[in-house]
């Protein structure tokens, strides 16, 4: 009882109050949380014996579908209200600063919808393939599951990830600056298998992928990619896709911008030219300084970010042994190396990659060092197996200007203050 009662006795110490106090003091919100976590409740700590060691807890199947500890309730997707006109046509961000390893939990992967989540009854799910094929086909979900299956782990990144940062540091947290990326294992059937089943006509060159949501979201896909490594997936991390990720079936295009990974897939049309639909003309084209716009910029360039520390996850110790942790990924292949800088890009040293460094997947890196308590300007840069080196934001701006919205893969800088708070900044 001690633990529970202590909390009841001290409502003033609730997380929210501490958060507000921290905000009022002008500090980073997360600093309040860490202060609270450090304090804890002595009644639960040695030599005292806490409730959970004395009393029975919940039995099996009380939590029929498990979820994280109630103490982790702050680990959620978040949105930025001013970004978009409505939540149905908007985005929420992965809490990258609260995750480790390379796999994103199913409930935390960023969302991007154009007309909200389509709630599809799997019994009514249908996928039509038609156009330049020998035989137009219609599949049920059970049909899709009967085809030979493949498992692939890939990152999925919105082309607009970091898009708010083109003109300068804007959002204070890697969840917001880099959180339109996630990485899961997909299970499904290769698109080539389905196209072989329908039989491609010789003139086939492009596909149209169309969703069953209220935007009937469409993208044109070059046939070569469809035959190379595209999947129609129905599972993520072993479970059926979540509705917000396209249940019951979506497109997976390894290394390519997430907008093309059409969710709630209902139709594939085979044609001889692209359709130039809204999401590949008005949107998802990259306007350059000279007024010319690049289109069909499918590949996601190599990118990385330090997730800890970051503005939402400040350093809680004043100095001493310190771990930097981050993720790197490339749409062109594997990450071969990640470098980190503590001085705003003047000097670099290789980070330690731990865990798998798979093809077109998130790759985890760490850098351990002895922090002397001085201010730091942290950066990371990814290098992929093609030799592409993640550019600085200024190098990108020099070539593209600041109007392109999409494909901002520039090096991120975090300013670590002496007190451990972290801020999103830009450096000379």
């Amino acid at each position, binding site marked *: 009882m001690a633990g529970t009662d202590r909390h009841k006795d001290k409502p003033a110490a609730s997380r929210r109050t501490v958060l507000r106090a921290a905000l009022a003091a002008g500090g980073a919100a997360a600093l309040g949380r860490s202060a609270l976590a450090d304090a804890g409740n002595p009644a639960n700590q040695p030599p005292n014996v806490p409730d959970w060691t004395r009393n029975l807890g919940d039995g099996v199947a009380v939590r029929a579908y498990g979820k994280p500890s109630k103490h982790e309730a702050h680990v959620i997707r978040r949105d930025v209200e001013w970004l978009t006109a409505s939540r149905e046509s908007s985005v929420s961000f992965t809490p990258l600063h609260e995750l480790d390893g390379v796999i994103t939990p199913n409930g935390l992967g960023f969302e991007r919808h154009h007309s909200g989540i389509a709630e599809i009854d799997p019994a009514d799910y249908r996928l039509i393939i038609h156009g330049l094929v020998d035989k137009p086909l219609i599949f049920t979900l059970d049909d899709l599951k009967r085809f030979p299956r493949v498992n692939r782990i890939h990152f999925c990144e919105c082309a607009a990830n970091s898009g708010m940062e083109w003109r300068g540091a804007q959002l204070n947290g890697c969840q917001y600056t880099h959180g339109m990326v996630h990485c899961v294992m997909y299970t499904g059937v290769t698109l080539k298998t389905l196209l072989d089943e329908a039989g491609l006509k010789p003139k086939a060159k492009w596909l149209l992928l169309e969703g069953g949501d209220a935007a009937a979201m469409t993208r044109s896909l070059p046939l070569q990619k469809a035959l190379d490594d595209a999947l129609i997936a129905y599972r993520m991390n072993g479970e059926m896709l979540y509705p917000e990720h396209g249940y019951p079936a979506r497109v997976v295009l390894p290394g390519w911008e997430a907008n093309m990974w059409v969710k709630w897939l209902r139709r594939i049309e085979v044609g001889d030219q692209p359709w130039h639909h809204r999401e590949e003309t008005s949107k998802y084209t990259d306007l350059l300084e000279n007024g010319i716009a690049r289109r069909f910029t499918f590949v996601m360039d190599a990118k990385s970010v330090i997730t800890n520390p970051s503005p939402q996850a400040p350093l809680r110790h004043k100095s001493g042994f310190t771990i930097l942790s981050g993720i790197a990924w490339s749409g062109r292949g594997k990450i071969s190396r990640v470098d980190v800088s503590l001085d705003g890009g003047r000097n*670099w040293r290789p980070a330690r990659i731990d865990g798998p460094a798979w093809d077109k997947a998130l790759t985890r890196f760490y850098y351990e060092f002895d922090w002397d308590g001085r201010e730091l300007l942290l950066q990371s840069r990814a290098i992929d197996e093609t030799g592409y080196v993640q550019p600085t934001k200024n190098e990108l701006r020099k070539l593209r200007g600041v109007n392109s919205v999409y494909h901002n893969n520039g090096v991120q800088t975090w300013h670590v203050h002496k007190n451990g708070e972290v801020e999103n900044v830009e450096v000379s």
Partner: protein
Amino acid sequence: MSKCLKALALSFAALLVLTTEHGFSAPRQDGKKAAPPAAKKTGIGREATAKEIEGWNISVRPDGRGLPVGKGTVKQGEPLYVERCASCHGEFGESAGRWPILSGGNGTLKGHDPVRSVGSYWPYASTLIDYIRRAMPFGAAQSLTNNELYAITAYVLYLNDVIRDERFELNERNFMSIRLPNQPNFIDDDRESTEKEFWRKTPCMTNCVPDEAKITGRAQIIDVTPETGKSPKVE
């Protein structure tokens, strides 16, 4: 060799033959080629009927393929637009709040604040009719009749000075006469040639930039980050 193992070995051999025969392969996670069995037809699924396809095939292409049969004038489009579109897109396509802007912005694409409207940015008019047909009005997708679709499309083109006569009737036969001015200003992805400098054999490791790094911008000064307390409630 046990029976079980023998069967396994046999089916493995069969698989090898199949894969070689069909040359079918897909990339594996490690980058090597792996082969899901058999590129031959499985017979899974059934033939889609023309009626099924017709019900779902709503795509329109720049060459006019997929245009529905219908007609509507600018004049007929105006009240429809005012009723079903203007609350988000503004009476003149200028946008209300953060909803997409539809008109204006000519000559702004090289400037500091480019406006990407139908008239200033979009390359093809087919994109407009396709998008209205599949996704608009927001929240009532695929509710317009074909005649309403043409009328509203004509009105949006009128707001962009692409159609100048309000008596003009747009239909599937004259649609291809519509040209949007910014069409020539799109190029295919050329990053691998124009951004060649990002492929570097020996990235600099020490003293890469002269002088100490100076902070040139701070997110906290802009202060647009949502506060943690304001995020969606979790049960």
